[in-house]
C-alpha cells in the first residue's frame, strides 16, 4: 500500500489518498496532503479541517455539509457560511477534499 512520508514515518493511504488509520493523523501530514491537492492552507482551511476532526472524534462519522456550513458561519460570519464558500476553499468539494486533508475516511453519502 502506498504511503505518505511524514518526518521519516510512513503513513499508509488508499488509492485515492485517504489515510487508512485516522489516529495517525497530524498537522504535518495534513500539510503534505494539502500540498498534493494544490491547496494553500489558510486559517479558514484549518478551521474546516479542525471542525471535521472534532466532529469525527465525537460522532465517528463525517458531518453533513449543512452542519459544516453552519459551524463555519458561526466562527467566521454569515458571508463565509455558505456551500459556495466551502467550494472556494476546497474546489473538489468540502466533503471529499477537506476530509482527505483531515484524515477522515472517504465520505460515502451525499448529504
Amino acid at each position, binding site marked *: 500500500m502506498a504511503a505518505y512520508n511524514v518526518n521519516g514515518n510512513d503513513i499508509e493511504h488508499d488509492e485515492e489518498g485517504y489515510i487508512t488509520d485516522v489516529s495517525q493523523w497530524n498537522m504535518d501530514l495534513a500539510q503534505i496532503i494539502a500540498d498534493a491537492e494544490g491547496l494553500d492552507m489558510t486559517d479558514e482551511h484549518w478551521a474546516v479541517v479542525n471542525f471535521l476532526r472534532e466532529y469525527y472524534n*465525537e*460522532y*465517528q462519522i463525517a458531518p*453533513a455539509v*449543512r452542519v459544516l456550513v453552519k459551524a463555519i458561519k458561526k466562527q467566521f460570519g454569515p458571508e463565509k457560511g455558505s456551500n459556495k464558500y466551502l467550494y472556494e476553499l476546497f474546489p473538489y468539494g468540502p466533503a471529499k477534499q477537506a476530509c482527505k486533508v483531515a484524515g477522515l475516511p472517504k465520505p460515502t453519502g451525499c*448529504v
Partner: protein
Amino acid sequence: MTEVVFEIEGVKKVITFLNRKAPYGTIYALEVLESVLITAAFEQHANIVFVDDGVYQIKKGQDTAALEMKNFLPTYGIIEMEKEDADEDEDMDMNWRIIVEKESMEARGLTADDFKIDVEVLSSAELAEVLETSDAVIGG
C-alpha cells in the same frame, strides 16, 4: 423518458422511526440511523423511537471489539445534537422527539440514565398516540 421531479419545497411531514432491534447482528439499526440523519437534511419533523430490543441501541458502554464491527453508539449523539440545534434555532421549523418505550426499558432492567442520549420515556399507550399522529412510520 419521463422526467421525475421531486417537489420538496414547503413539504413538512412527521416521520416516526421505530427502532425495534438490537444494534448489531442485523443492519436495521444502522440503516434507520442513517435515514434519521437524512431527515435532518430536509428539516422534517421526526420521532425517533426505541422499543423492544431497540432500546439497546442507545445503551451506554458498548464494546464492539469482539464483533470486529465499528461501534456506532457515538453517532446517536448527532440525533441529540440536531434536536437541540433545531430547538434553539428560531428560524428552523423542525421538531424532534427522542422516545423510549417505558415497558421495553423496564423489562430489560434499564433506566433513562443508562442511555447515551437524553430521552423521553413514554408508556406504550402514550407511544400509540405518537404513532397515530405521524404522517409516516418507518420500522427497523
